[in-house]
C-alpha cells in the first residue's frame, strides 16, 4: 500500500471587513473571497520539489475560517536531521539542488515562499524527488498578511529585515528574505544538525544586534561564521566535511544587508556547477515511460510486469484525482478538523464577559470569536479511504488496467465506487493521451458511456474541442488593458454573473473573466463579432475549469461558440437567430405536432423564451453544476445538439404547457426548478436519433463537423437556405434529397408522393405511396399505410415541380391534425429522380 498520497490541512482566520462598498455600490469582496480567488494560481504551480496545493474552502461553521489542503508527507527535513541519518554527501548535494531549484521556480513565477525552514521541507521516499517544499506562497495568498487575522508561527531564523518589520506584518516576505531563510536551511543540511536548540532565539538576536551595531560592519557582512563560532564555543559544532564553495554560497545568503544577497538563480546555478553528481535525474522521466512504448506487445509486457510486481496502482493517479477519491469517501476537511478538535466551535454565550460593572466595564472578554483553532498542519486521516478500497480486494496494478490490454474480468469491481472511480480516472488519462494517435473520436464512446469526472473535465474539454497552442497564441499577445467600447458593459455584467458560485464572487476570477471576454472581443472584432450580454455566462464554465489559465478558457470559449453558437454574436445576428428559432419550431412540429399546434395557436413564439437558451447554450438558464454535465454531453455531438436539448426541455414541460394559455405558459417556461439533467440528456440523445440530420439544416450552421457520428450525419447536402418569410410559412422541417435516397435504399422512410396519379404511374420511387389527388389531408388514408401508425420513421412528402406550395400546405394540415414525423423534400421529384436507381418507370 503506502503510495496513496497524504493530505495536510491547515486553518487560517480571514480578516473580517464588512460594510465597505466598491465604487459601483456593490459590497467589497471579503478577504476570504479574495484569498479564494488567488488560490487557483498557487494550485497551478507545479514543480517536482513542491508539494501541490489541492483545496481551499471557507468553513460553514465559522465564516471567517478558511481551510487549505495540500500534499503532505510524514518526515520533515528537521526530523531527518535530528535522527542523524543525513550524512551521505550525494544526498546532501541533491537536497541543495532540489531546494534551490524549487525556490527558483517559485521566484520565477513571482511567488515568495515566506515560510522556508527545516520543518516546511519534506523528505520523501518517492524516487522522483527527495525533498519537497511545503507551505509556500502564503504571502501571495493572504496579500502579505493583510487578509488574515490569525498569526502564523515562524521559525527562529527569520531574516533580520522581517524581524524589524514586525509591526507592519510578519508576512512581509521578499525574494531576499527567502534567500536568507534558504541559507539557514542549507547551513543545517551542510552541518548535518538542527541549530535549534543549540542556537536559541536570544543568541540569534544577539548575533544580529552585534552585527548591526558594530560600526565596522562591512556591507557584505555575513553572520554564517558567527553561527558556526557560537556552535564551536558550545562544543556543539559537529564534524562535517569542509566544503569551501558551499560555505561561500551560504555565507552570501546570510548577508545582513538584503541588497547584498545573491538572487536565487545565481545560488541555484552555482550549486549546480559545483555538484558533480547528477542526483536522481534519471527518475524524472520515469513517468513518461509508458508513452514511449511503441507496440501493443510492449504495452502488454509492461502491464504484466507491473502486475507481477503487484505494484500499487495509486502512484499513477494524479494528486487531484487522489484527493477527489478521498472526498468521495464522504468527508470534508472541515468535518474532520472539527471532529479532531482542531477547530473548536464555542457556544455564543462563551464570548460574553464574565463580570460587568458600572455600565461599560467588563472583566474577561471570554473567547473573542465563536470558533478557535489550533495552529499547524494536520494530516487528514486516510484510513477510511483505504479500508473502503481494500474491502474487497487488495489494490494492485490489475485494478487499473481495464482497457482491454489484459483480459481482466472486472465483475468484482462492480459496486465498489472507489475502484470504479480510480479505474475510470486512469482509463480516461490513458485515452486522452492516446487521442494524439487515434484521434478525438477514439475517446467519445467511452465518454458517452461513463461521463466526465470533475477533476478531468478541463482535459476532456480541451481534447474534445481540439485545443492546442495555435488556438490561444494570438490571445497571449493582446493588450487587454487598452480601453475598449465594451468596457462598461463588462464592468456591470461580470459582478453579477453566476454569483452563487463562490469562485465567481472573487475579484481574481472576475478579473480573469474580464480578460477572457475582452481578449475574445479584440480578436473576433475583425469578423464583426461583439460582446452580447450572456457571453459572460457562457465563458464562465471554461474559466472555472481552467482558473489559472485564462488563455485556455479563451480558446475553449472561442471554439465552443464557433461550433454551437455560430455567428450568434455578430453585431447584427437577427438573420442567424431567426433562422435558428425557425428550424427549432420545425423540429417541434416534427416530434410533437400537438404541442406545436398549441404553441402556434397561443402566439407563443420561440423568440419569447428560446433566445437565452440558444444564445448562451443554456448557460444563462441552468446552474453551473447542471450546465457542465449538459456540456460534457454537448461536446460529444454535432452542432445541432443544442436544438435537441431545447426539444427535451420543452418536452419536459409539455403537459403543463398544454393545459394553460399564453401568460402561464411564459411563466412556466422561464421557471425551471428541479430539472433533471440526466433526463434532459437522455431525451436529447433520443431526439438526435429520431430526427433526420438534414432536417436540422441551417444556412448559418457552423462549418465544423463532428467526427464520429454515423454515416447518415456525414451525407453531402445540397440544400439551400430559405428566406425568413418562407421559413415561417413552413410548418415542418425539410429533408435533403441525399438523405431521402439514403433512406429509400435502407427502407427507413415513408415516401408520400403528392403528384397526379398519372404522373405517379409513369415513374415513382420504389417505396412511395401516392397521396389521393384532392390535396386534402386524409388521416384515414394515411393510417392504412402498413406500419405507419407505430413507426418513428420520417414521413416525407414529395411533390412535382408545380406543387411545392400545395404540398407544403398539405403537410401543414397533417401536422395540425397531430401527425408526427412529417417533413417535406427540399426540391421537386423531377430534380431527384435522375440521381436515384430506386425509381420505377412504367
Amino acid at each position, binding site marked *: 500500500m503506502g503510495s496513496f498520497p497524504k493530505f495536510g490541512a491547515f486553518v487560517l482566520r480571514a480578516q473580517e471587513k464588512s460594510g465597505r462598498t466598491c465604487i459601483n455600490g456593490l459590497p467589497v469582496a471579503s478577504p476570504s473571497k479574495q484569498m479564494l480567488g488567488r488560490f487557483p494560481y498557487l494550485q497551478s504551480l507545479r514543480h517536482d520539489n513542491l508539494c501541490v496545493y489541492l483545496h481551499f474552502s471557507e468553513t460553514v461553521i465559522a465564516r471567517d475560517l478558511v481551510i487549505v489542503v495540500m500534499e503532505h508527507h510524514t518526515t520533515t527535513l528537521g526530523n531527518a536531521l535530528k535522527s542523524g541519518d543525513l550524512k551521505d554527501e550525494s544526498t546532501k548535494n541533491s537536497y541543495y539542488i532540489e531546494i534551490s531549484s524549487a525556490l527558483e521556480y517559485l521566484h520565477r513565477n513571482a511567488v515568495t515562499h515566506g515560510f522556508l525552514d527545516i520543518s516546511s521541507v519534506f523528505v520523501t521516499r518517492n524516487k522522483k524527488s527527495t525533498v519537497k517544499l511545503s507551505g509556500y506562497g502564503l504571502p501571495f495568498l493572504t496579500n502579505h498578511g493583510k487578509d488574515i487575522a490569525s498569526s502564523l508561527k515562524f521559525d527562529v531564523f527569520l531574516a533580520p529585515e522581517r524581524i524589524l518589520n514586525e509591526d507592519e506584518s510578519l508576512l512581509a516576505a521578499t525574494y531576499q528574505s527567502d534567500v536568507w531563510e534558504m541559507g539557514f536551511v542549507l547551513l543545517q543540511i551542510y552541518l548535518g544538525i538542527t541549530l535549534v536548540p543549540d542556537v536559541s532565539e536570544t543568541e540569534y538576536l544577539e548575533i544580529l544586534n552585534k552585527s548591526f551595531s558594530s560600526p565596522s560592519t562591512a556591507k557584505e557582512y555575513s553572520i554564517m561564521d558567527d553561527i558556526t563560532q557560537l556552535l564551536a564555543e558550545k562544543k556543539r559544532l559537529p564534524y562535517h566535511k569542509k566544503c569551501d564553495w558551499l560555505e561561500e554560497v551560504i555565507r552570501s545568503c546570510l548577508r545582513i544587508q538584503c541588497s547584498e544577497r545573491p538572487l536565487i538563480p545565481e545560488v541555484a546555478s552555482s550549486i549546480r556547477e559545483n555538484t558533480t553528481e547528477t542526483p536522481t535525474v534519471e527518475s524524472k522521466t520515469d513517468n513518461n515511460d509508458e508513452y514511449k512504448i511503441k507496440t501493443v506487445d510492449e504495452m502488454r509486457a509492461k502491464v504484466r510486469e507491473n502486475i507481477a510486481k503487484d505494484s500499487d496502482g495509486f502512484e499513477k493517479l494524479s494528486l487531484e484525482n487522489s484527493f477527489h477519491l478521498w472526498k468521495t469517501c464522504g468527508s470534508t476537511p472541515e468535518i474532520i478538523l472539527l471532529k479532531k478538535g482542531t477547530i473548536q466551535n464555542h457556544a455564543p454565550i462563551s464570548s460574553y464577559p464574565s463580570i460587568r460593572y458600572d455600565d461599560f466595564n467588563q472583566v474577561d472578554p471570554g473567547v473573542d470569536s465563536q470558533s478557535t483553532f489550533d495552529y499547524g498542519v494536520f494530516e487528514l486521516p486516510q484510513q477510511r479511504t483505504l479500508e473502503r478500497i481494500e474491502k474487497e480486494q487488495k489494490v494492485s496494478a490489475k485494478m487499473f488496467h481495464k482497457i482491454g490490454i489484459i483480459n481482466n474480468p472486472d465483475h468484482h469491481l462492480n459496486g465498489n465506487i472507489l475502484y470504479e472511480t480510480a479505474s475510470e480516472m486512469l482509463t480516461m488519462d490513458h485515452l486522452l493521451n492516446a487521442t494524439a494517435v487515434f484521434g478525438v473520436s477514439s475517446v467519445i464512446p467511452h465518454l458517452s458511456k461513463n461521463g466526465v469526472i470533475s477533476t478531468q473535465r478541463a482535459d476532456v474539454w480541451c481534447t474534445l474541442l481540439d485545443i492546442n497552442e495555435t488556438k490561444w497564441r494570438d490571445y497571449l499577445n493582446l493588450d487587454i488593458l487598452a480601453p475598449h467600447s465594451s468596457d462598461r458593459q463588462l464592468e456591470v455584467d461580470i459582478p453579477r454573473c453566476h454569483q452563487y458560485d463562490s469562485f465567481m464572487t472573487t475579484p481574481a476570477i472576475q478579473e480573469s473573466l474580464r480578460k477572457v471576454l475582452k481578449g475574445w472581443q479584440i480578436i473576433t472584432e475583425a469578423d464583426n463579432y461583439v460582446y452580447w450580454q450572456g457571453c459572460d455566462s457562457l465563458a464562465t464554465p471554461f474559466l472555472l475549469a481552467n482558473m489559472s489559465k485564462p488563455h485556455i478558457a479563451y480558446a475553449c470559449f472561442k471554439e465552443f461558440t464557433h461550433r454551437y453558437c455560430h455567428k450568434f454574436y455578430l453585431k447584427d445576428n437577427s438573420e442567424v437567430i431567426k433562422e435558428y428559432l425557425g428550424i427549432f419550431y420545425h423540429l417541434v412540429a416534427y416530434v410533437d405536432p400537438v404541442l406545436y399546434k398549441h404553441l402556434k395557436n397561443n402566439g407563443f413564439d420561440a423568440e419569447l423564451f428560446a433566445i437565452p437558451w440558444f444564445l*448562451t447554450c443554456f448557460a444563462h438558464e441552468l446552474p453551473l453544476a447542471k450546465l457542465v454535465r449538459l456540456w460534457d454531453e454537448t461536446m460529444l455531438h454535432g452542432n445541432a445538439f443544442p436544438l435537441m436539448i431545447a426539444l427535451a426541455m420543452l418536452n419536459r414541460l409539455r403537459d403543463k404547457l398544454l393545459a394553460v394559455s399564453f*401568460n402561464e405558459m411564459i411563466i412556466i417556461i422561464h421557471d425551471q426548478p428541479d430539472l433533471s439533467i440526466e433526463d434532459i440528456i437522455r431525451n436529447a440523445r433520443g431526439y438526435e436519433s429520431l430526427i433526420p440530420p438534414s432536417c436540422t439544416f441551417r444556412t448559418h450552421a457552423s462549418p465544423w463537423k463532428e467526427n464520429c457520428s454515423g454515416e447518415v450525419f456525414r451525407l453531402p447536402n445540397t440544400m439551400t437556405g430559405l428566406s425568413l418569410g418562407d421559413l415561417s410559412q413552413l410548418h415542418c422541417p425539410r429533408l435533403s434529397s441525399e438523405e431521402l435516397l439514403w433512406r429509400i435504399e435502407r427502407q427507413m422512410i415513408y415516401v408520400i408522393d403528392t403528384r397526379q396519379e398519372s404522373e405517379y404511374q409513369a415513374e415513382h420511387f420504389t417505396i412511395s405511396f401516392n397521396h389521393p389527388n384532392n390535396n386534402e389531408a386524409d388521416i384515414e388514408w394515411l393510417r392504412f399505410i402498413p406500419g405507419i401508425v407505430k413507426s418513428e420513421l420520417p414521413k416525407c412528402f414529395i411533390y412535382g415541380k408545380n406543387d411545392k406550395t400545395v404540398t407544403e400546405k398539405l403537410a401543414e394540415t397533417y401536422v395540425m391534425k397531430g401527425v408526427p414525423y412529417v417533413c417535406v423534400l427540399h426540391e421537386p421529384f423531377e430534380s431527384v429522380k435522375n440521381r436515384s436507381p430506386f425509381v420505377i418507370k412504367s
Partner: protein
Amino acid sequence: MAARNAGGAARPGGPNRTCQFKLVLLGESAVGKSSLVLRFVKGQFHEYQESTIGAAFLTQTVCLDDATIKFEIWDTAGQERYHSLAPMYYRGAQAAIVVYDITNQESFQKAKNWVKELQRQASPNIVMALAGNKADVANKRTVEYEEANAYAEDNALLFMETSAKTSMNVNDIFMAIAKKLPIGPAQGEPTGTVDMNQPQQQQKGSCCK
C-alpha cells in the same frame, strides 16, 4: 399564478372588473429594471441580480377602488444590442416604465432616447413613467431630481425616484400607472402576446373583461 400575486390580492366583496394591461420596462443595462420588477412582483431584492437576456415575463395584480388591474410585465434586456428586440415588446403595450440610474448620467440620456422612441413608435395612448432608480445611493447621485422632474413634466411622464433595494416608491410607481390606465367598458380580447411580425397595431382603448 394566484400564489405570486402577493402584492395586491383582490379584496373580498370589492367591485370588480379585472383589467389586463401590458407593461414594458426599458432602459440602459444594470439600472435595475429586473430588480424593480422583482421587488414589485415577489418583494425580493438580489444585490447581484443577473443580467436579462432577451426579456423576462412576470405578472402582478393590483387593486384600485373600482377595478383589479393585472399587469403583464415584460422586463427587457438593457444592452444596446438587444435593442432590435424591443419593438416586439413595446408594441401594443399600454404602459411603459423607462428606468435610469440616478448615479449614472449616461443612463439618463439613454432613458430620454427610449422616451423619444416610444413617443414615435409605440401606441399613442401609452402611459409612460420615468423611474430614477438606486435612490438609496443618493450620495453618489449624478442626475439631479429637479432635472429629471423637469424633463418628465415637459414630456408628460409620471416620474418618481425609486429604490428596488429599499423598495422606496416601487409599488407607488406601478399604482400611479394603474390609476392612469383607461378602465373603460370591455373592449376586445386582452392580449398577453407580443406582436412579432405585423406592423404597428391599432391601440386598444382599454383592456377589460
